[in-house]
């Protein structure tokens, strides 16, 4: 993959992912139940104690109407960035994403919010004229995210003996996945295979530094892996933001082949 193609794909995919995230927030923030739970009153104490800002300004920034405005601004910026990938649009998207994360006490969707910041930072660096550095920044985090996730798991015997996968699937928000997990728990050998498959897949991300020619094969496996996570847990944002990080990763790994 060429440098230009990688920058273009990364910025387009990032614009799409952030558009999708903003539309989801916009739709939710218009629902009365969501407004009742996530009212400014409910989160006021944390924001006033956690932000070194004037109370009136905090309320102005984080009320429900402001959340809708921030989401609308993110929709507009994502649209603009898709057609004209300028650093100013990505800096704006960084700001809207940060405000949304703070609005939800640090994160709306955990790890996907973190990876969104990583790709945004890389996109800002790349569009400021340091394309290679920006892409390598994204690739480093992406490869490390798989490896670190595997390293964190392999310490626990439940991952090594196959108990982990059905145990986590039982916590899915989807009742049919919970039922399938109960049935799956009886097949110990299969669970061990799935558990070790996950560990080997995640840990071998670091191996791509020594065998970059396998990067497209790993990418194909990563797509299947993220689709399986989406199907099991509903984590669509994880799917999109990790896919967004892959053009930069493929480009950076291709540098090792030269």
């Amino acid at each position, binding site marked *: 993959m060429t440098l230009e193609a990688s920058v273009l794909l990364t910025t387009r995919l990032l614009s799409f992912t952030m558009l999708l995230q903003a539309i989801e927030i916009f739709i939710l923030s218009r629902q009365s139940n969501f407004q009742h739970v996530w009212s400014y009153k409910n989160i006021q104490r*944390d924001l006033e104690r956690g932000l070194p800002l004037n109370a009136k300004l905090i309320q102005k920034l984080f009320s429900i109407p402001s959340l809708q405005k921030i989401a609308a601004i993110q929709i507009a910026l994502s649209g603009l960035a898709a057609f004209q990938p300028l650093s100013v649009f990505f800096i704006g998207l960084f700001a809207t994403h940060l405000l949304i994360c703070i609005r939800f006490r640090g994160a709306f969707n955990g*790890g996907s919010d973190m990876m969104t910041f990583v790709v945004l930072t890389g996109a800002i660096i790349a569009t400021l004229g340091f394309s290679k550095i920006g892409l390598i920044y994204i690739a480093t985090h992406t490869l490390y995210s798989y490896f670190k996730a595997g390293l964190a798991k392999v310490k626990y015997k439940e991952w090594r003996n196959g108990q*982990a996968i059905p145990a986590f699937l039982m916590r899915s928000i989807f009742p049919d996945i919970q039922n399938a997990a109960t049935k799956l728990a009886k097949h110990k050998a299969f669970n061990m295979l799935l558990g070790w498959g996950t560990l080997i897949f995640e840990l071998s991300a670091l191996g791509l530094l020594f065998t970059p020619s396998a990067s497209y094969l790993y990418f194909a496996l990563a797509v299947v892996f993220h689709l399986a996570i989406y199907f099991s847990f509903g984590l669509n944002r994880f799917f999109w933001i990790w896919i967004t990080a892959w053009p930069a990763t493929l480009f950076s790994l291709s540098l090792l082949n030269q």
Partner: protein
Amino acid sequence: MHFRFSIFLSLIRSLFPRWDFFDQIAFSFVVYYKMPTDSEWKTLAFTQSHKSSRLVFNQAANDTLMQSSVVEQFARDIQELENNTPNFSKSDIEQLTTYQLLCSLLQVKLKHKNLLNTEFQFKITAQNTIEQIDIYTSDKLPLVNI
């Protein structure tokens, strides 16, 4: 209110990536509720139909994930209070942001069940394959109109 740096760091924690997902099988937290007319606790599920899940716009599933996360964060706050403030009072709990969020969330979910009662009570338990521990039981709370 006094500025607290630890809360500030928590609010901007997404800027500092941590990639240890789905590692330890910790306790899972279950919410039970009881109406004045009930003698037994009933489980309140945080589930979503798989049919409504979408790869592109999945706001309903993300909302449900966020709701489950509120329950976990409240349970963690209770454990933190137990560790850091041995003689904590009821008002310490009621002041927690996660308590406010959880009460509002339960009001929404119970109203969805079209219950005619005006009060409810809830409890949170921590469960694993071996044991079940009650970590918090609320007083009777009003079931307000939303």
